[in-house]
C-alpha cells in the first residue's frame, strides 16, 4: 500500500508537533548542567548532529568526544572516562547501541556501575528508515541488565528533568531520547520526574492506560476524548521502566475495569510484559490489551503510516480504550486477556 511520503530527512523527530515544543532538550539541558558540574563529559559515535548533543559540544568542546562510527568503543571509552571520576553522557541511536554494544553496556558499564549515561535516540517507531534504525526491542534488551536504570521520558519537560536527575544516579542509565522539536505535554511547573516512580496523569475508573515514552501524550489525548463520550479513562505514566514501579501499576490496575498498555516498543518484552508480570505476581486480575509494535521487521514509511499499521494511531488507541476492539489493523491477536475479573 502506497500512502503518502516517507518523510525522509526527519531523522527521528517527533512529527506533526502542533502545540508547544522545545528544541533539543537533551543537549540544551546537558549544556546547562555541565556548566554547573565540571565532571560531565559528552560523547557520540558520529551522531552529534542527530542526537541533539551539539549545544553541549559547542559550549564545552574540550569535554566533547566524537569517537567515530564505533558503538562498542563509544561505550568503552565512556566507561573509562567514568572510572576517572567523570559522568559520561554518550549518545547515538538506540538500535545501534543496544544491538551492537550490548556486551559493553552489560559488562563494561552496568557490571561495575560505571557512571555512564546512555542517551539513545530514535527509540521505537520515530523514523521512516525501517528495521535498521528502529529500536523496537531496546526496552526488552536493557531491562534484563542487572543494575542498569532504564528511562523512557514522554516529552520535553520530562526529558530535561531526566537528563538532570540521572547525573545523581550512581551507575549506568539508559534513556530513550527524543530529538528535534520535542513536544511539551507536561507542565514544567507541575510535573516532577521521580526516579522509579510511576505517575497517575489522569484519573478514571472505567479503563486505564499504562504507558511510557512519547505515547503518553496520545494516552492523555485519548483519555480526554473518551471522557467526552462518557468513558472515564485514567492514565498511568511509567517513565522509569527499570526499576519498575510494580506497586503503582498494581494499585492503578485495581482501580479500573480494564487496562490498555500502550508503548512505543514491541508488545512482548517491554512495558506490557512488565505490567503482566507485576499483576500476575501480585494476584491482580484485570482484562488487559496490549498496544505496541508487532514482532516483525517493519516497512519503511512515515510515522503516521507505520503507527496505523500497528494500531498505535489516535483512532486505533481510541478504539481500544472505548472497548471497540484493538487498533490492530494488520495481525490478529493483539487482545490478551490474562484472566477474568476477580
Amino acid at each position: 500500500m502506497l500512502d503518502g511520503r516517507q518523510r525522509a530527512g526527519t531523522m527521528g523527530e517527533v512529527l506533526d508537533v502542533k502545540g508547544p515544543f522545545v528544541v533539543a532538550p537533551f543537549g540544551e539541558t546537558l549544556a546547562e548542567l555541565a556548566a554547573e558540574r565540571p565532571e560531565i563529559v559528552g560523547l557520540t559515535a558520529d551522531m552529534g548532529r542527530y542526537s541533539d548533543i551539539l549545544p553541549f559540544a559547542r559550549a564545552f568542546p574540550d569535554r566533547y568526544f566524537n569517537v567515530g562510527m564505533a558503538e562498542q568503543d563509544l561505550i568503552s571509552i565512556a566507561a573509562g572516562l567514568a572510572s576517572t571520576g567523570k559522568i559520561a553522557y554518550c549518545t547515538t541511536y538506540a538500535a545501534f547501541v543496544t544491538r551492537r554494544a550490548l556486551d559493553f553496556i552489560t559488562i563494561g558499564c552496568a557490571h561495575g556501575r560505571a557512571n555512564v549515561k546512555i542517551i539513545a535516540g530514535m527509540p521505537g517507531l520515530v523514523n521512516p528508515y525501517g528495521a535498521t534504525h528502529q529500536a523496537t526491542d531496546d526496552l526488552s534488551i536493557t531491562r534484563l541488565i542487572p543494575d542498569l536504570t532504564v528511562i523512557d521520558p514522554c516529552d520535553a519537560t520530562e526529558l530535561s528533568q531526566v537528563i538532570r536527575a540521572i547525573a545523581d544516579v550512581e551507575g549506568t542509565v539508559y534513556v530513550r531520547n527524543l530529538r528535534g522539536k520535542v513536544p511539551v505535554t507536561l507542565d514544567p511547573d507541575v510535573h516532577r520526574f521521580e526516579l522509579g516512580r510511576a505517575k497517575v496523569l489522569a484519573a478514571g475508573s472505567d479503563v486505564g492506560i499504562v504507558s511510557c515514552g512519547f505515547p503518553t501524550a496520545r494516552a492523555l489525548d485519548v483519555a480526554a476524548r473518551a471522557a467526552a463520550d462518557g468513558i472515564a479513562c485514567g492514565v498511568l505514566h511509567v517513565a522509569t521502566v527499570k526499576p519498575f514501579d510494580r506497586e503503582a501499576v498494581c494499585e492503578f490496575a485495581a482501580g479500573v475495569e480494564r487496562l490498555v498498555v500502550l508503548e512505543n516498543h514491541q508488545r512482548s518484552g517491554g512495558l506490557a510484559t512488565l505490567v503482566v508480570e507485576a499483576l500476575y505476581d501480585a494476584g491482580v486480575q484485570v482484562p488487559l490489551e496490549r498496544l505496541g509494535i508487532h514482532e516483525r521487521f517493519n516497512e519503511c514509511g512515515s510515522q503516521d503510516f507505520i503507527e496505523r499499521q500497528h494500531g498505535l494511531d489516535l483512532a486505533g488507541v481510541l478504539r481500544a480504550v472505548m472497548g471497540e476492539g484493538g487498533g490492530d489493523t494488520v495481525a490478529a491477536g493483539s487482545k490478551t486477556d490474562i484472566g477474568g475479573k476477580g
Partner: protein
Amino acid sequence: MATREHTSATAHDRGPATDITVEALRGRALELRRLMMRMAAGKGEGYIAQGLGIADALAVVYFRELRHDPGNPAWPDRDRFVLSTGHYSIALYAALTLSEVLSAEELDSFGLNGSRLPLSTFEELEGVEVTGGSLGHGAGQAVGMALGLRLDGRDARVILEVSDGELQEGSTWEAAMAASSFRLDNLIALVDCNGIQADGPMVLDLEPVADKWRSFGWDVEEVDGNDLTAIVTAFDRLRSRDGRPKAIVLRTSPGKGVPTIEARERAHFVRVGDDEWDALKAELEETHA
C-alpha cells in the same frame, strides 16, 4: 575473607623506579611465577601458561614503570594498569600481592567458591581496573581513562595489556584508531603475542602485528617478551610524550620458566595432575638458578 591494613598511604610520590636493576627485576619475576604456581597448585587446570609467559613484563610494569600506591589503590593520580585479558588473573593477582595491594594469605583462595580471586578478573577487587573476562573491553576503557586523566591535567599513564588473540576482537582496533586520533601519548599498550588462543594456535593470521599498530598511528617497539633487558629498553624508548600512543609487542612463551608447561605448547587451558605440582615447582627453581 582476609583483609589487610595498609601502612604506605604516604607513598603518593612513588614514580617509576627506573633505577631498579635487571637482576632485581629477574628476582621479582621469579617471585611472581612462584606465587602463580602456589595459586594454581592443586586446582588441576587453569590459565597458568599465559601467566608464566607474561611474568617478566609484569615485573617491569609493577616494579619499574607503574606509579601507584598499594595503600591507596584508588589514588586518582595513579598510573592505571589495565589487564584486558581477564583470564590472566593469576598473573595480576600475583603482581598485586607482590606489590602489597593484596595479602599473600588471600592467594590461597584463588578460584575457590566465594573467593574474591576468581579465575577471571572483576573490577570490584582493589587494584583491578577493568572487568576482563569478555575480551575486547580493555583497550576502549584504557582510551577513556587516558582521556580522563589528560582532561584533569594529571600526568599519569595508562598501561594496557591486550593479547594477540584479542586482536581478533574488532573493538580493540576501534580503540586503537581512537587513541591515535585523540593523540593519547599517555597510553602504552603491551601486546602479548604468545601465539595461542582458546582453539589452539592462532586461528587467524595476525602478522605483522607491529606493523598493524604502526599503521594505526602508534609508536611501536617489538621485543622478546621474556627478555627483561629488552622490555626495559623498550619502555625507556617509548617514554616521550610526542602525541602518539605507544605499544610494545611482546613475543612471549606461554609457560615460561617451567619447561614442562612450556612444552605443553599451544595449551590455552593447561591441565596439571595433583601429583605433578611439586616437580613443576622444582623446575621453576632449577630454571631460574
